[in-house]
């Protein structure tokens, strides 16, 4: 026990300041009212669905829970059931084999809910999706392409994989009030 306490004290607090929301990541206009945002802002539950990623994005989503980014420290945590979630995070091009599971998970999340697409593949189909494909949606025999081909997406975070800071920014953008364009 002494060793553990000593190590904790020596390590100190590593958590860095959270990034600011970035309006450039928003795809859909903010659908939530300020009152709801005020509540969400204090405590947000996220359900993650890997819809067919290479697992690179998962590595960075894990990293947002490390001591440096400490997502839980600002009241945001990952939950095991979509029934407990306010937000759905989706990675990967949506494989055809995950299409039903993704739709069902989305449906199981109570309204109001938000969807954030994480990573290049989730945003536009990425390297796994040929451009000349079925219905021009960027899919293939095995993939439906980008997440918004399957469920509505509020915020998209690109990058291969996006950095933990970008992922946090995406989450925070989804739950921040949309600033009106000046003029």
């Amino acid at each position: 026990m002494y060793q553990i306490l000593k190590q904790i004290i020596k390590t100190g607090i590593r958590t860095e300041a959270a990034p600011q929301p970035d309006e450039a990541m928003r795809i859909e206009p903010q659908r939530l009212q300020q009152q709801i945002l005020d509540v969400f802002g204090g405590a947000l539950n996220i359900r993650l669905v890997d819809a067919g990623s290479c697992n690179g994005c998962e590595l960075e989503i894990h990293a947002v829970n490390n001591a440096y980014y400490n997502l839980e420290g600002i009241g945001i945590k990952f939950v095991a059931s979509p029934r407990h979630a306010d937000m759905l995070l989706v990675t990967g091009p949506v494989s055809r084999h995950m299409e039903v599971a993704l739709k069902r998970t989305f449906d199981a999340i109570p309204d109001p809910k938000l969807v954030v697409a994480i990573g290049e593949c989730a945003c536009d189909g990425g390297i796994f999706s040929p451009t000349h494909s079925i219905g021009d949606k960027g899919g293939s025999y095995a993939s439906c392409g980008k997440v918004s081909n399957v469920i509505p997406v509020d915020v998209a975070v690109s990058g291969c994989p996006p950095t933990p800071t970008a992922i946090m920014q995406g989450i925070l953008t989804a739950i921040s009030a949309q600033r009106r364009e000046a003029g």
Partner: protein
Amino acid sequence: MPIKHPNLHLERINGAIPAWRARISGADLQPICHAVRDGGGRLLALWGSDEREQGNGFVLHVVLVKETGLVCLSVALSAGQPVYPDISRIFPVANRMQRAAYDLLGIYASESQDHRQWLRHAAWPDDSFPLRKDFDEAASRSDELDSYPFVQVEGQGVHEIPVGPVHAGIIEPGHFRFSVVGEKVLRLEERLGYTHKGIEKRFESMTLQQGARLAGRVSGDSTVAYAWAYAMAAESIANIRPPDRALWLRALFLERERIANHLGDLGYLGNDVAFSFGFAQFWILKEQVLRNNGALFGHRYLMDSVIPGGVAVDLSTEGKRVLEQECIMLEQQVHILRSIYEEHAGVQDRFIGAGRVEPKLAAQLGLCGLAGRASSQAWDCRVQFPCAPYDRLDVQMAMHRNGDVAARVTLRFDELFESLRLQRDIMVNLIGGDELARTLNQLPAHGFGIGMVEGWRGEVMVAIQTDGEGHLDRVHPHDPSWQNWPVLEHAIMDNIVPDFPLINKSFNLSYSGHDL
């Protein structure tokens, strides 16, 4: 010559790994496999290719590993009836690979007991095969509902727990069907293929360079291993050797990938036994490695750092100093954390004895890589087939015989320290020479090349075949998870359900690398 058989005429394949190739008839497949298995060899990979345009019908490729090297057997199958003799009775691990080869190419293992679909769920119909050159994507779309005949366990008090494809944590999708009595697991059946996104088909429309990026995304956590194996296969066809500095840098990247993944896993293994201190500590260390990667090489996971012909990024003198400091810090910190893990009664109580795979079973099932070495399977490509620069590094293989979670934890600690030592040695050798890559834009026609690298999880293999114009005709990436997923089904038997996440994590297998 690695094996002798009257009908086997082996031809050496150029390249960094000792490998031979032979065309054999279907009738010789089983006897040769028997001979290799009896000599202590294993099955590495099995796949097929459509060579009807060249007049060869379909071709089955089987790669066997012996201590002397790889043997790649190619069996021509008739275009009308592409059938070959089942080898899953000789190598149980062949079962899923044979089923996948049918799903994707329609080549069929006769006499096999198990013909259930594997990578195909319901996205395309069962009489349509994506890897055939005449596959019509638009006409092959199926919207039927998926169903799969799981094996039913019957008896008093037995019930089933279905889990997935969406799991409780931040993990890839797959389905686990537990048959349990009370808390005790009688049987686990896995169902994978959820992340199948058509990687092998994608390769066929790519240039050599685009293919390198895709290879680096077969399984994101092993991006360096895949990119290197792909580059090695391409270099084997082109018969070129990358500059020395590039080879040293590749090894540096590969060891850094191992270090980062082992740190992450050690943290999560602590977390899975409710020791969140372990997660917090190890992930601070992992983050520092990733940040150094980002600052020095431009990518936290080193994606696209290895390219055919060499590497894309260099290490500066200043960067060397940063990594030397990092080495010192990691060695010191991991020593402290290791002694805390080892002295923590609660942690050890959960680790010891959980998910045990006896060496005998591991050998029968072909358990490989890190998990294999924790069950006495002494295979490590860096030791058996030390391609440059490993031929100058004298890698010490970590081994354990207990085969439980505790052994896999010990292996990770041992390999972590060994990788830190190797990283130091590599940096000592990184002197002079500014050339980072030989030009490699186009491959020769009708080439066949193979590359294999010991990734942090185990052996990663990539095979490349080129067509008459030197374009990618068939690329097959093979993940060690193919070998290790079936063993997990055995490791969980007689353990309790709540130990599954821990046991699963101790293997930490790839879904994407397997599902392709």
